């Protein structure tokens, strides 16, 4: 092994750990725990983010967390993030009011390969908050609807109260060019929709496995079952993409927290093609 130091590894570069400033423009509540923030970046990028990517959002004096972009990539002056307020930082984030300043780094990570879906049946499977990082992909698909064959969104939540983006889902449901199927684990008496885990929707949906592509995001266990159901329906592992979650702190591959087998989720993910992580997905506590 050589220890030689190459001069070009000592190159100058921007500090990837230094946040820039952003301002909250709008805040709305989606469910009892989930809020969506529209923020305005102080540095307007001329490159749209890729659906599936995430930003690091920080509250000064509290901390920083990775949050997926959940808005339309075509809208460049507003970055939309849908946040479940469960920890100290996410709770502080959703308490920010319009006009308040936060720290922003990103966007980071790999995204959904929307251009690979051209000419194919597209199956989008979301569990819970997993719909948030998939929504930018849905916007992209619907913006050029004619380029794809069927589009189906299969969405599962714990209860009807946990359904995100409800009004938008209802609007999509009225369209004839996207099928939206929603299921809940636990239903009150007045629920007339599907009951059961989201995987049951896969066997009911129809697509041509030879020409389909699937984007899956949700809790790891839900993704494993959804992928198994897609496999049973005949979809190849190479046609299935999933978004992994690990503890991401630096977002640039140098802090080590988001190890997932041989990869770093912030750098090599979060979106992976299933055949590339298949052998590590089932390993407990990896």
């Amino acid at each position, binding site marked *: *092994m*050589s*220890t*030689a*130091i190459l001069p070009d*590894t*000592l*190159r*100058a*570069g921007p*500090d*990837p*750990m*230094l*946040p820039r*400033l952003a301002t909250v423009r709008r805040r709305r509540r989606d469910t009892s725990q989930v809020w969506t923030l529209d923020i305005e970046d102080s540095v307007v990028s001329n490159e749209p983010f890729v659906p599936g990517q995430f930003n690091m959002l*920080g509250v*000064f*004096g*509290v*901390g*920083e967390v990775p949050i997926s972009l959940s808005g339309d990539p075509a809208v460049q002056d507003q970055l939309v993030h849908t946040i*479940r307020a*469960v*920890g100290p930082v996410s709770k502080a984030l959703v308490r920010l009011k319009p*006009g308040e*300043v936060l*720290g922003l780094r990103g966007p980071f990570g790999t995204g959904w390969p929307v251009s690979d879906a051209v000419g194919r049946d597209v199956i989008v499977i979301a569990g819970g908050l997993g719909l948030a990082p998939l929504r930018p992909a849905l916007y992209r698909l619907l913006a050029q609807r004619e380029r794809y064959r069927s589009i189906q969104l299969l969405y599962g939540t714990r209860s009807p109260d946990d359904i995100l983006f409800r009004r938008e889902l209802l609007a999509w449901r009225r369209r004839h060019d996207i099928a939206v199927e929603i299921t809940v684990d636990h239903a009150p008496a007045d629920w007339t929709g599907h009951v059961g885990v989201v995987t049951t929707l896969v066997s009911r949906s129809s697509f041509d496995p030879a020409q389909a592509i699937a984007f899956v995001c949700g809790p790891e266990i839900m993704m494993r079952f959804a992928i198994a159901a897609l496999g049973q329906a005949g979809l190849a592992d190479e046609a299935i993409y999933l978004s992994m*979650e*690990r*503890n991401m*702190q*630096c977002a*640039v*591959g*140098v*802090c*080590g*927290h988001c*190890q997932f*087998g*041989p*990869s*770093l989720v912030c*750098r090599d993910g979060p979106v992976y093609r299933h055949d590339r992580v298949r052998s*590590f997905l089932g*390993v*407990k*506590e*990896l």
Partner: protein
Amino acid sequence: MAEYITLAVDGLQALLDELKRREYRVLGPTIRDQAIVYDDIESLRDLPMGWTDEQSGGHYRLVARQDDAIFGYPVGPHSWKRFLHPPVLPLWQAESAGNSVRITTTQGPDQPFAFIGVRSCDLHAIAIQDRVLIGGQHVDPSYRDRRKGAFIVAVNCGEAGGTCFCASMNTGPKVEDGFDLALTEIVIDDQRLFLTEVGSPAGRDVLLQVPHRPATPDEIAAADGVTARTAASMGRVMRSDDVRELLLGNLDHPRWDEVAERCLTCGNCTMVCPTCFCTSVEDSSDLLSGKSGRTRHWASCFTLDFSYIHGGSVRGSARSRYRQWMTHKLASWVDQFGSSGCVGCGRCITWCPVGIDITEEVRAIREDRPAERTHHED
């Protein structure tokens, strides 16, 4: 053709003086807290002359030598990462400025480092951290600033420690490149000398102000003998050619349960490892000044916190955390950064309070693969 000169003991002092004159912060081995550690060095008197350290699994003792060797010890608990990649590092501060926030970054060190006594394992460890922290798409500016001007005086090991296995990892004991000067301590006709290989223009330039003479063929041969003897007396051995495939193919091996019975998940191995680079950040605020800031500190994959995502830790068991550390170090590091993360320095063995031995764990998995287990049960 390598360029050799010879320094006497007072030549080594002159080298330290010259580095100081050039405003380097001179760091080297010294005795503190009953161990050989790296700290600021004023003169030869600060170096551990006449001392060595005796090492085995979970065991470290300073022992007086029978001679006046200056570098006659294997590596201690410190590595150079504590200077290049500090344990605690303020990243930035923020303060309110009207409706906005002003962010200021922390300045790097005001003096370049001169490291005295860098062993081959640690030179490889620095090269590994270079690949991780400044060799990828994103560059860690604090590491870059510390690393950039560092002057490296390497030392070829005169003896191997009880937990050393650099020969197995192809990382030593003889330094090959990546240094400014490389010393080999030799004794000829009762005279202590340092055969010195010049490794860079900066090294050659510093020597202009240091008394020295051309090396004799006898001195060069004596130095070669030193590293050959060290290579032949490694305390540990580990087959490393197939270790990546071995570990990634045995993620559910029963040995992980066995080692978890002994592992205290204290994280000592990650603190003494010269390549472990993981960090966490912490934000804090000062109510009086209204300022807030972010500080980075070393993190260990042995803590529950390390893999925490909402709802719990990904790696809750000791089994999964030991497996994470060892498979990352020896296997997935190759996928992520293009080389093994292990340099065979043996610190993780010496400083493990229960003496867990990474070479023994690899051997146990190699000697009991699933196919062979099935065979035994037949």
